């Protein structure tokens, strides 16, 4: 018989996460995030590490908590629902898994314990000013030189680069190669001379960066996978579990904020916003969207956990989650009228601020982690059997 309840281990985690957040997501941590937009807080990541929640699905002997796939989804959802600074830890999980699977002993011993302890994070040096979603178009160059590699080029939207210890870098190792041939992945220590990090601010107050590499010399030990085998490494990363995320936690935060604000504010005729039928429909629609997002997400986890093809399901989850979050954030911002414009103070109490901030934040969700167009192309090709769209 079909079953929609999550495993007990996942359900029990909800209250454990809440207790954790009560203790560690302090006003100081929130204020730090509001001020910096880093998406990371060392005090908070060390507290996560104490719970073994930096690499939560990894076995205990490797520094993880051995969480199941659904427990992991619940953990991430609850942390994002509370707006915890999780970007650094979350971003680091993919390169950590790649090092675990494909990295040399040197990299594994050197980097993984620091990560599990919440003492090191990894930024992603993938996209470039002229590459966007098309990663096979990267031009950053890594040239062999006396057993080392020398890197020249520029990476874009390298969130965390100003605080990360390492950069997971995709570079071209064979100069005349085209597309996805001739690329190699490196783990570049960010304190290597020749790296310059320039801040970029987003509409949602996030800090990201442009990173310039000028004759940056790294040892061959920093390489992951084969020389010119970078695309295989990238494909391996795509096949890892937990790559199919949704914005469920953030969308639920938007919804709760919108309901609270709609009870607090009134229209020009002193009617509570929540009593107006048009607003009730907006909130109902958003609730349906959130329910479906969660179901699509859980279906993807279930398919992957059962060894079934989950890429189309993952693309549907990302697409639906991002597009409905954008739609609902805009609709619920409209609902609040000018009340939504005030700057967000970063606390749970600022209900209108949560809606306004969600609206700003939502714009990016259809872009990073694979644009909605990439997702639609994947669904059309592999879900509907259509020819590759252009």
């Amino acid at each position: 018989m079909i079953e929609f309840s999550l495993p007990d281990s996942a359900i029990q985690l909800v209250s454990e996460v809440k207790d954790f957040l009560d203790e560690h997501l302090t006003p100081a941590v929130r204020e730090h995030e509001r001020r910096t937009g880093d998406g990371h807080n060392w005090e908070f990541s060390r507290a996560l590490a104490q719970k073994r929640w930096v690499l939560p699905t990894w076995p205990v002997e490797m520094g993880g908590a051995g969480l199941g796939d659904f427990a992991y989804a619940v953990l991430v959802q609850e942390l994002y629902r509370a707006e915890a600074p999780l970007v650094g830890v979350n971003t680091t999980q993919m390169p950590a898994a790649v090092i675990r699977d494909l990295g040399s002993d040197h990299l594994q011993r050197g980097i993984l314990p620091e990560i599990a302890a919440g003492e090191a994070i990894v930024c992603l040096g993938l996209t470039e000013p002229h590459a966007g979603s098309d990663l096979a178009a990267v031009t950053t160059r890594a040239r062999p030189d006396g057993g080392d590699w020398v890197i020249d080029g520029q990476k874009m939207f390298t969130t965390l680069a100003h605080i990360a210890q390492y950069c997971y870098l995709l570079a071209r190792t064979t100069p005349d190669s085209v597309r996805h041939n001739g690329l190699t992945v490196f783990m570049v220590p960010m304190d290597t001379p020749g790296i310059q990090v320039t801040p970029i601010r987003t509409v949602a107050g996030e800090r990201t960066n442009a990173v310039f590499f000028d004759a940056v010399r790294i040892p061959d030990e920093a390489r992951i996978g084969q020389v010119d085998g970078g695309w295989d490494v990238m494909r391996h990363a795509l096949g890892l579990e937990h790559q199919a995320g949704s914005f469920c936690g953030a969308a639920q935060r938007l919804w709760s904020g919108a309901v609270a604000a709609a009870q607090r504010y009134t229209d020009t005729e002193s009617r509570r916003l929540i009593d107006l039928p048009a607003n009730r429909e907006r909130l109902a629609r958003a609730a349906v969207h959130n329910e479906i997002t969660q179901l699509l997400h859980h279906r993807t986890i279930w398919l992957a956990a059962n060894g079934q093809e989950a890429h189309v399901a993952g693309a549907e989850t990302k697409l639906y989650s991002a597009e409905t979050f954008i739609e609902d954030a805009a609709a619920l911002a409209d609902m609040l009228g000018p009340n939504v414009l005030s700057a967000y103070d970063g606390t749970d109490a600022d209900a209108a601020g949560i809606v306004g901030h969600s609206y700003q934040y939502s714009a990016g969700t259809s872009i990073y982690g694979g644009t909605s167009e990439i997702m639609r192309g994947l669904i059309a090709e592999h879900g509907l059997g259509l020819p590759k769209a252009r």
Partner: protein
Amino acid sequence: MDLSLSSEQRDLCRVVGALLTKACPPSRVRAVEADGGFDADLWKSLSAIGVAGKDIDDAPDPLLTVALIAEICGRHLAPVPLIETYVGRRLLSMVSADSMVPRADEAVIAVALAPWHSRDHEVLVQYSGVADGVVGLLGDELVWLTGTDCYPAQRNFAGVALNRVSPQRATEIEVLQTGESARAAYAETVTNWKRLAASMLVGVGLRAVELAAEFAKQRSAFGVPIGRFQAVAFPLADDLTALDGARLLSWKSQWAAQKQIDSAGLLALMAYASAAEAATTAVAHALHAHGGQGLTEECDIQLYHRRAKFLAVIAGDPKHQYAAIADSLLPQFEAV
């Protein structure tokens, strides 16, 4: 979470799918549309398998099983009273004596999806012209109307069997329950109908998207198959996504109803609202992908276009579903 179907459910789906592929091709759907909108032969074959009766209820997980069959019926636009008979029979077995529940496998039960305000108030009811009886709510009385030739047929753009039913035209009226319990039993029956209609809408929508994808692979324009154009392919990808989501929600609502979880009613409303929206959007895109051909009666896609809208509006303005969802989720209106 476990989304795997039992081997019995998979077998039954295969049998029903094979039967409908053979007995209910688009040519048959067209012929039935022109002949009153009810396929008595097909209904006889389907009920012989036991799709809407006791056999299903005796097997494990009956509600999901019926939902799976409803989705297949949607894919084939099967002109049979599966949903109405299933929810109607459940209601009758709950509130009336055994002797009153139609016994024959191929019995047809119709359900008035809107209440009657008075005895001469007319409500559009599908399959009432061929039914053993119609269940509905008259004031605060749950009633069972019998007599089939007494209701004027209503021609309609969906090509379905629709009649204008008022209690006063019925040959006989039996009051099954009165008062609060009557209202509750009726509301639950309409909710059960919506839960299954969601699955049927998903089937209609998914098949329409498949037809559009097949067409877009074969039809060329400007030297390439039109499915290569993002403007054609991407709306269909959105539709597949929305329909997959609505299907999960309809399954979850059946699961919740089976387990008698409190949120079962809310999930049914959510499933119906999302399936109606996803399916009507999907058939619109699917028809559009066919270009001018999609507008012709010869093209199968128009059958889906008409049927999806019918299923989306027969229970009332879809916006009202959202209002009901809001009432279930949000603080109640404050008296001013």
